[in-house]
């Protein structure tokens, strides 16, 4: 709209593009190339090219196990975050304004505390003599104390703690765009609280929920710190395997292949999810156009 010179936007975008090209695109391309090299523990990175690393990984039962564990952990984390985070955002939204700000601060504030610190808190809580087991023993739960640390359960608990504020925030943002008149109209027409939530609020905040779900899934599937700290050395996920190849085994080409597979998996999941959400939205829009319903939200 301000087209006096076509060069101005290019000049404005140039510094960021130069930094991104040099410190993001080139290095990512480098990983892809590195993953095509062979490796020998005596000679190091071999000069030849080939897909051996990928073949080795895809036929390795240890990798299959880690990949399944990564997916399992990410899916559980996403499901729990949605189940807990969506109602929590709705509850905060319905609070009196003077409570809202304070509650949001408590719920979302931990996002600004380092993940290492938060995981350490769970290490203290979930140990065999930790607070959770002490409470369970006092309550007389049969089988207590349990072995909680270094289990997938511990990893999921830790990840939910890290991710659930993101869901609350994402839903909160779409609740902010919700017209309160809609809710009142539904109530005045005799809808129950649950019906209002299910039929009026939920469809309107769906974009926020979908975006939050995708974010949580991608972040949990690629998380490193929480699986490493709460899952221990034996419960490997794809990112801790990659870390291991790069910093312990020093088989960089294999690590690069792992990194490439992880990134391809995440990008594929993102594409499929975005496509799914878009078709859903299109279908809803189609319904609205046909039935002439919901046109009040101009």
């Amino acid at each position: 709209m301000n087209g006096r010179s076509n060069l101005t936007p290019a000049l404005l975008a140039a510094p960021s593009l130069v930094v991104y090209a040099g410190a993001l695109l080139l290095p990512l391309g480098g990983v892809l190339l590195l993953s095509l090299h062979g490796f020998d523990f005596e000679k190091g990175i071999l000069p030849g090219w080939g897909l051996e690393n990928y073949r080795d990984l895809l036929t390795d039962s240890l990798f299959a196990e880690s990949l399944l564990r990564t997916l399992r952990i990410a899916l559980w984390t996403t499901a729990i975050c949605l189940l807990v985070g969506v109602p929590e955002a709705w509850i905060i939204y319905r609070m009196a304004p003077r409570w809202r700000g304070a509650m949001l601060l408590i719920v979302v504030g931990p996002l600004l505390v380092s993940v290492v610190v938060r995981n350490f808190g769970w290490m203290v809580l979930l140990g065999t003599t930790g607070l959770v087991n002490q409470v369970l023993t006092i309550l007389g739960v049969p089988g207590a104390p349990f072995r909680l640390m270094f289990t997938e359960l511990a990893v999921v608990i830790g990840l939910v703690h890290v991710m659930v504020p993101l869901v609350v925030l994402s839903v909160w943002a779409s609740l902010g765009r919700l017209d309160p008149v809609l809710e009142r109209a539904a109530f005045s027409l005799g809808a129950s609280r649950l019906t209002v939530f299910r039929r009026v609020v939920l469809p309107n905040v769906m974009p926020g929920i979908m975006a939050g779900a995708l974010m949580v899934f991608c972040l949990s599937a690629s998380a490193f710190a929480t699986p490493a700290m709460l899952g221990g050395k034996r419960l490997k996920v794809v990112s801790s395997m990659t870390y291991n190849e790069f910093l312990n085994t020093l088989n960089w080409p294999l690590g690069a292949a792992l990194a490439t597979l992880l990134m391809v998996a995440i990008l594929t999941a993102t594409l499929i999810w975005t496509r799914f959400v878009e078709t859903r939205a299109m279908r809803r829009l189609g319904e609205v156009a046909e039935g002439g319903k919901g046109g009040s939200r101009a």
Partner: protein
Amino acid sequence: MSRNGPLALAFHALFLTFILAPLLVVIGVSFTGEGYLALPLNGLSLRWWRAIGDNPRFLESFWFSLRLGVTAATLSALIAVPAALAIARWRFPGRGALVAILASPLMIPHVVLGVALLRFFSGFGLSGSFAGLVTAHVIVITPYMLRLVGAGLSGLDPRIERAAESLGASRLTVFRRVTLPLIAPGVAGGWILAFVTSFDELTVSLFLASPSANPLPVQLFNYIDQMTDPLVASVSAALILGTALVLLVLDRFYPIDRLLTGERRA
């Protein structure tokens, strides 16, 4: 005057317990006088808080992370503000691609970013250096910066800028005297979020750190990997209390939901 039923409030109480438990337990255990992580406490002691001062490595890492965060956030602002202006004020071919590229670090797993930069920087001897970490952090935090600066710009009426131009102001003057002051809150919010993100960043830093360039999260992670004594608790508690203080001050000027989503509170 809450419109929530008792069931909803019970759920909310459980949720808050879940969110706060690991943080409160760390603060609690940091006051132990024992040589191990003991709860419940038998007596309060500042033994492990004093131990922070006797352990220069955590203090050194703290100052290092502070320098790293300030440098990275400032450099990020310098490249993100012009880019956000180009995106908000001009329609040009490749604009959509530019937006996608600049936001892409959000979608790239940090482990992948870490190995990519380790491999790339080791070719230039930048791995394990301050400059290498700064570059990596700029990539990680710039998407956040862009989001907040972009939100600030989209709330700005372009007619104000055009009015200034029609009164004879040069483009640079318009930017310096009109645009910049008006988007300053967005830039400040972006800077703070970028700084905090850099200060907390662990995964990418793990690949690029060295004994002479060791950010605090990396130092803490490696320390916990070796042993978990109450010193970890007192350092962590200091970080939690520090963050809480910053948050309380910040919330007066910049509500946290706006800081994290770029949108105004409902």
